[in-house]
């Protein structure tokens, strides 16, 4: 079976106002997603992970490279066919409030995708909207309300509900719990997991939170400054990172233990993520990498499959992590 999403050397660049400079938000990413899996993309702010998610649902057109959905080029379709094709590839945004039109009642917002498709009568669409709201745990009375009358968590449930009305194949989850209270994040993640089983969804799960990604993902890609640094099974990566950046990310994860009980040294990266306008030569991570050598500045590490199913872009992949520098 073919991949549901395939990106080939995907690049999304923006020109700055004035057009003098180019922001390389996504700068050469290749991956393929399997049906039914949860593919986590993790990276810090400014790594281009949200841009990647938007490119997958065709909100941003690739500057170069290609995105294939169900082994077809969505941009080969024109006008109405392109819009119709979108129903299978949906996105839930980070900010649940901004994603809802403040002047539409919840019912109308949830019904909107069906209105666009024009399926069934208005009454049938209303019934489906209310049914889906019920499925995500919102009683029928919420349907009559406006977004400002709901809490953040409730609004995010509404956003999930209206994506579900379309019965999509793929849902891009762009930091879906980051804006929510910690107390309801777990609930929400469980809801996502339940819905995946029930509707056979494939998730592209974008987050900066390692705890979230390992909780929910089958495979994980680590993104830095517009490129993937490492990709592999979620457990493999958590247990045995091959890229120094992944290792640093893992060690930055808070551990619920007092300091004298924590094992290992925390790796603290120096400085900020460099500007995507002029990324460093060679390896992008070299400016903050504790193991960087001359070759890292002169040649860009190749994206290679070091072990079956484990891809990494580092000249010293597997050699320097866990302090085992040879």
């Amino acid at each position, binding site marked *: 079976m073919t991949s549901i999403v395939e990106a080939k050397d995907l690049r999304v660049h923006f020109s700055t106002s004035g057009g003098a400079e180019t922001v390389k938000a996504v700068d050469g990413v290749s991956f393929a997603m399997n049906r039914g899996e949860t593919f986590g993309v993790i990276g810090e702010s400014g790594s281009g992970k949200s841009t990647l998610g938007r490119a997958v649902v*065709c909100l941003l057109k690739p500057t170069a490279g290609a995105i294939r959905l169900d082994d077809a080029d969505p941009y080969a379709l024109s006008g109405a066919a392109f819009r119709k094709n*979108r129903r299978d590839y949906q*996105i839930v945004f980070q900010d649940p409030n901004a994603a809802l039109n*403040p002047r*539409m009642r919840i019912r109308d917002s949830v019904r909107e995708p069906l209105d*666009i498709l024009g399926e069934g009568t208005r009454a049938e669409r209303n019934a489906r909207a209310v049914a889906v709201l019920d499925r995500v745990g919102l009683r029928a009375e919420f349907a009559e309300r406006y977004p*400002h009358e709901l809490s953040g968590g409730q609004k995010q449930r509404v956003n999930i509900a209206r994506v579900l009305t379309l019965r999509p194949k793929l849902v891009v989850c762009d930091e879906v719990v980051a804006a929510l209270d910690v107390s309801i994040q777990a609930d929400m993640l469980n809801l996502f997991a339940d819905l995946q089983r029930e509707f056979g969804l494939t998730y592209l799960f974008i987050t900066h939170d390692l705890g979230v990604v390992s909780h929910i993902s089958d495979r994980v890609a680590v993104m830095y400054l517009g490129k993937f640094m490492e990709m592999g099974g979620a457990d493999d990566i958590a247990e045995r990172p091959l890229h120094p950046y992944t290792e640093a990310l893992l060690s930055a994860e808070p551990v619920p233990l007092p300091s004298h009980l924590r094992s290992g040294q925390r790796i603290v990266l120096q400085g900020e993520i460099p500007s995507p306008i002029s990324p460093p030569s060679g390896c992008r991570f070299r400016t903050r990498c504790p193991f960087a050598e001359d070759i890292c500045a002169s040649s860009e590490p190749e994206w290679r499959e070091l072990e079956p199913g484990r891809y990494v872009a580092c000249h010293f992949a597997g050699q320097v992590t866990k302090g085992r520098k040879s």
Partner: protein
Amino acid sequence: MRGVLKWLRRDLRAALSVGFLLLLLGLSLTAPIVAPHSPTNQNVNNTLHEPDAAHPLGTDDLGRDVLSRLIYGAPATLYASFLAVGVAILLGVPVGLLAGFLGGWVDDIISRIIDTLLSFPAIVLAIAVTGALGVGLTNGMIAVGIVFSPQLARLVRAQTLIVKQELYVDAARVFGASLGRILWKHIVPNAIQPVIVQVTLLLAVALLAEASLSFLGLGVQPPQPSWGAMLARAYHYMEIAPEQMYAPGIAILLTALAFNALGESLRVALDPTMKRR
């Protein structure tokens, strides 16, 4: 309908302005019945007379009954305001929406045209148009509407630029919404608030433009009455009969005020986030 009544009962300002505008409308429609005298009958023996029982608002420089002229002038005045603003909305709102939403070269071209039109004084263009198409209130007010339209277009464009970046517009796009649907369901309802307020302000300005045009003799033609024409005549006799200006002046003032107040109340009423719980 029930919702409107409920709104008026709760919002005194809206109720007062709607009431006043309905009263004007009623007077306009029933002018021949309610007006005590003919608006055009002259009586040169009784000019510039102060109010009395026969003429509650006095008489003008030709001895015509001011109250009757005021009543007969209302339809022309209202018609002129709504015509000009209607033309401005019809031209300005779609143009502003397209310029703001599509951006790029469409925006560049439209914005240059807007800038050019904005540099035209309304009255001057109206004079030119009436010169070309013939003197008359309709031609003049269409010209005023054309001159007003860039104000609305610029406002709508600015609002659209803000709203089109909202996440719910992206969401609608991912659902496969067409351009028309995005504009109508998402951009317009969220961009229109300041436009409504601006429209009510423009109604008041159009009222004054009508007065100016009629004052210059390019609008309502004598002997037909309009508030602007009445004010223009009263102006000539300012030194011997200053009270002549009160009736048309206050009528224009109150109507403009009612339009503005209604606009402000509408803005609040149309915003669900400002609704009382």
